[in-house]
């Protein structure tokens, strides 16, 4: 066993340092939003650069922070009892950090007299820390603990303003559901430990180390129950239907910047957990396995116990999640609730990757997760910016917004088109790759692609409806507050003043929009990296 060097944790140490510094300064009485925001932005940026540097060189020798020979090595409880560096994990770290960076940048433009800036940025850093740690997981308990670090930070983030009842209600709901989810997950982990005698993710679920001789009795039931509890427990994080109900109220009640982080960032940690926990048993049943001592029914059965049922289960979960999310999104009259349901449906698309479980599908799902960071974080950030103009979250209040604030409107239109999967946006490319991968796998997976495509056609309806409101309807006179300095009269709606959303927020929205188009036109570098990571993951597990 080789000891992992501390530089492995350099990105995490930067995040931790920045978080601690924020709280330290706050306790010393230095309370400036710009300072805290700057610290958070710089901390996250450095961490992101570290991860990107690692990714740039993985899996070649001599990474920036990870020494040679430590990336994408097959692991077991012997050489990686807690953490392991995989390019798949590094990619998720980059995804998490990107989301956090966009939110931190945008939050620089929060009102500087606002109370609790230290809490906001400190907790944002801690939540990000938890996510990046989770992406290193080699062990189930470690993974769940890292997710809890994120969870506890985000519960507080939702209610930190302590101003309105809805935010507090959302925080409370989030907390209770989060506690339930954690309890279920840990219970599932304990059942799996009882069956397999290990909690290491690489060996869990393969059936190699069964403590019980007979798989047909209650013992298999225990393992299956363990996976069931994990499926549900993590399902809450992923907002898979039917474990989604909390998400809408929470995204709606939380400050929009926090919603951006929850939808764009923190729920992806649940998807990462799904991948690393469930791919092992699924893949194990796909590989040919030579039973020690010849093929006995017991050995064969043990080896292929969970694969197919799990795939079917994830396929169902994917279809139900995307359909329910879309159908419910159709009925929404509030922008944030609509985006929340759209976020649920997008989680459904991502689950296709798990059901198909080939390396192209895993790459496709990861690309979908990558795309979702930009479009959903960006969309919520625009909602927050528009709220700054006194335009509320009801969709009908958005009449004419596209014409009154052209840049914000164009960005939001780009996000919506991307969510709907219209070409030249990253959302289209990710769906194209994901659904192609499902078709490529042939068999019943083709129907997952068909379900996904029908759903994306359905989703066009509510995204286009928002575009219609934004561009084709005029604000009723006197309904929307007209900001100072706006030109009233003329044949077109009054133009809002261009300033006022703040440099940080404008930069964040601009970056997200640019990414939506840039990766939509030329996804090759990202996709090549994701494909490599997925290939390695499949080989490792």
């Amino acid at each position, binding site marked *: 066993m080789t000891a992992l060097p501390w530089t492995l944790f350099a990105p995490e140490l930067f995040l931790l340092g920045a978080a601690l510094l924020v709280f330290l300064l706050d306790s010393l009485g230095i309370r400036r939003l710009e300072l805290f925001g700057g610290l958070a932005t710089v901390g996250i940026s450095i961490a992101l650069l570290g991860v990107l540097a690692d990714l740039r060189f993985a899996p070649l020798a001599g990474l920036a922070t990870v020494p040679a020979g430590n990336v994408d090595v097959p692991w077991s409880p012997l050489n990686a009892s807690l953490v392991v560096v995989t390019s798949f994990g590094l990619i998720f770290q980059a995804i998490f950090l990107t989301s956090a960076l966009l939110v931190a940048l945008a939050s620089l433009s929060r009102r500087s007299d606002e109370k609790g800036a230290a809490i906001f940025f400190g907790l944002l850093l801690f939540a990000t820390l938890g996510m990046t740690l989770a992406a290193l997981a080699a062990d189930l308990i470690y993974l769940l603990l890292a997710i809890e670090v994120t969870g506890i930070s985000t519960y507080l983030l939702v209610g930190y303003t302590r101003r309105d009842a809805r935010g507090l209600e959302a925080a409370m709901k989030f907390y209770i559901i989060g506690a339930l989810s954690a309890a279920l997950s840990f219970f599932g982990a304990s059942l799996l430990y009882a069956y397999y005698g290990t909690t290491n993710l690489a060996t869990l679920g393969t059936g190699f180390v069964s403590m019980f001789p007979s798989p047909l009795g209650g013992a298999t039931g225990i393992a299956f129950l363990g996976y069931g509890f994990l499926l549900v427990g993590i399902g809450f994080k992923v907002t898979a239907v039917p474990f989604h109900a909390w998400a809408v109220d929470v995204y709606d009640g939380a400050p929009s910047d926090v919603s951006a982080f929850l939808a764009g960032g923190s729920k992806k940690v649940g998807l990462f957990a799904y991948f690393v926990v469930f791919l092992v048993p699924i893949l194990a049943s796909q590989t040919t396995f030579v039973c020690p001592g010849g093929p006995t029914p017991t050995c064969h059965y043990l080896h292929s116990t969970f694969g197919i049922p799990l795939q079917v289960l994830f396929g169902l979960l994917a279809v139900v999640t995307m359909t329910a999310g879309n159908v419910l999104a159709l009925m929404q009259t509030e922008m944030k609730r609509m985006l929340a349901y759209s976020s649920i449906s997008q989680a459904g698309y991502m689950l296709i990757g798990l059901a198909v479980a080939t390396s192209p599908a895993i790459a496709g799902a990861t690309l979908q997760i990558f795309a979702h960071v930009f479009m959903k974080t960006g969309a919520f950030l625009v909602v927050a910016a528009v709220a700054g103009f006194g335009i509320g979250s009801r969709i009908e209040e958005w009449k004419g917004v596209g014409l009154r604030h052209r840049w914000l409107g164009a960005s939001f239109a780009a996000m919506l*088109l991307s969510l709907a999967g*219209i070409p030249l946006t990253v959302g289209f*490319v990710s769906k194209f790759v994901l*659904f192609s*991968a499902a078709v*490529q796998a042939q068999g019943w997976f083709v129907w997952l692609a068909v379900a996904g495509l029908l759903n994306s056609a359905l989703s*066009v309806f509510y995204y286009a409806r928002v575009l219609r409101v934004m561009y*084709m309807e005029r604000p009723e006179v006197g309904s929307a507050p007209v900001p100072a300095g706006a030109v009233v009269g003329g044949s*077109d709606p009054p133009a809002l003043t261009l300033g006022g959303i703040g440099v940080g927020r404008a930069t964040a929205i601009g970056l997200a929009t640019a990414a939506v188009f840039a990766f939509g036109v*030329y996804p090759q570098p990202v996709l090549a990296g994701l494909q490599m990571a997925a290939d390695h993951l499949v080989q490792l597990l």
Partner: protein
Amino acid sequence: MIPILSITLATLFVGTLATFAAGPRARYVAAAVSAIFLAEIAGMFALFSAPALGLALPTQFAEPESYPWIQVAWLHVNYTVGIDGISLVLILLTGILQAVTVAYSWTEQRQPAAWFGLVLLTCLGCFGVFAALDVLLFFVFWEVVLVPMFFLIGYWGGPRRRYAALKFFIYTHVASVTMLVALLVTAFYSHSASLDFASMAASAQTLALPTQIILFLSLFFGFGVKFPIVPFHTWLPDAHVEAPTGGSVLLAGLLLKLGGYGLIRWALEILPTGLQHVAPILYAVAFASIVWGAGVSLAQRDLKRLVAYSSINHMGIVLLAIALYSSLGLLAAVLLMFAHGIVSALLFMVSGSVHHTFGSRDIATVSGITPTAPVLSTMTMTGALASLGLPALISFPAEFTALLATWDKIGFWVLIPLGALVITAAFYIWMMQRLLFGTPKSIPVGAHDLPYPEAFAMGVLVVLSVLYGILPNLLIHFIQLSPVAGLP
């Protein structure tokens, strides 16, 4: 070799951006872009006409260009463009309609930069569809057309524009998605080396017959909605009636042709066996569209709605000609698409001009406009006569070829389109009788004849109708320079 297709795409793209940014001077930029586009099309024709350059081979795509776009182990997508005679003729149509739409809407007052930018973007998408030879690239352009058209209808359209825009978007998007699934299944089930047209056309023949039939039918649905075929046509009257005139011109003139082109290139050429096994279904749908389109047109009082329904009729004949699967049929289909593009554009401009000159498009309300607006009447008459297939005008050679090809292949069934032609003639003549030559009625005080930009745009189309009506060989020569010209 000159990469003329990529150059054209690039100029259209830059031109579109420049138009969006040009503010009140957008129309000059749009006009310049249209002129450059037409010059580039002339260049393409020149390259095609020069066999010395080794290009005009009937079995190959000229000017093919291919660069890797998305390449991972299991997915090979290229940026591949190339044209044959069919694409070339439809690209010519794109260039013409872009120019006349810009000319017709020269005096657009509401958000002119956005208007001209979106018009150019629509044409950019259509050009891309006609030039793309890769599934993903094709689909990207196919969808690129949707977004600007959604805004053109939804912002500049008539009273029910928002409903019409949404309906258009959703109908055509569902169809596109079906088409994409079918193409992906074709590619992956036949283990095509890449998503390129050539590679798919070669590998698709290895698919089992039932698979080919199912895939062809899915593609037929996907492309058919754009056509539009009965019973998936209901988006068309709404979209056309509510769209602004320029939008209707592009919708009828170009967007419907995307369906016909797609069916030829991506369904017929990739899955010919599938087509041959389900041809009777296509005939039935075509006959239904022909008869339904003609019959419903007869009942219309709204001039624009009448032209819209007559499009269903004409595109039904196009479908019939494609379903015949013969070289004569395909020739007729492409000719007819070109002719319909020119004539329906002219007629939509006429109905737009009637509407804003006389305040209404209701044939029963407005009548006897000839004394007030003689030029407009002349345009109306040319358009109507061309559309009903009068010899020496553009539709005649096309429709004649279509009927001939139908007779060759399925004999007496030709009576159905022939009968529908009589109805078409009837409703156009009846329309002219009332609108042009009736007792003057509902003529507003101060109504005047066509303004110059509109007269110019329509005049160009009238000249082209006559030119290609007398000399159809100018097009036929090029259409035959395509891989499918070798069919029986």
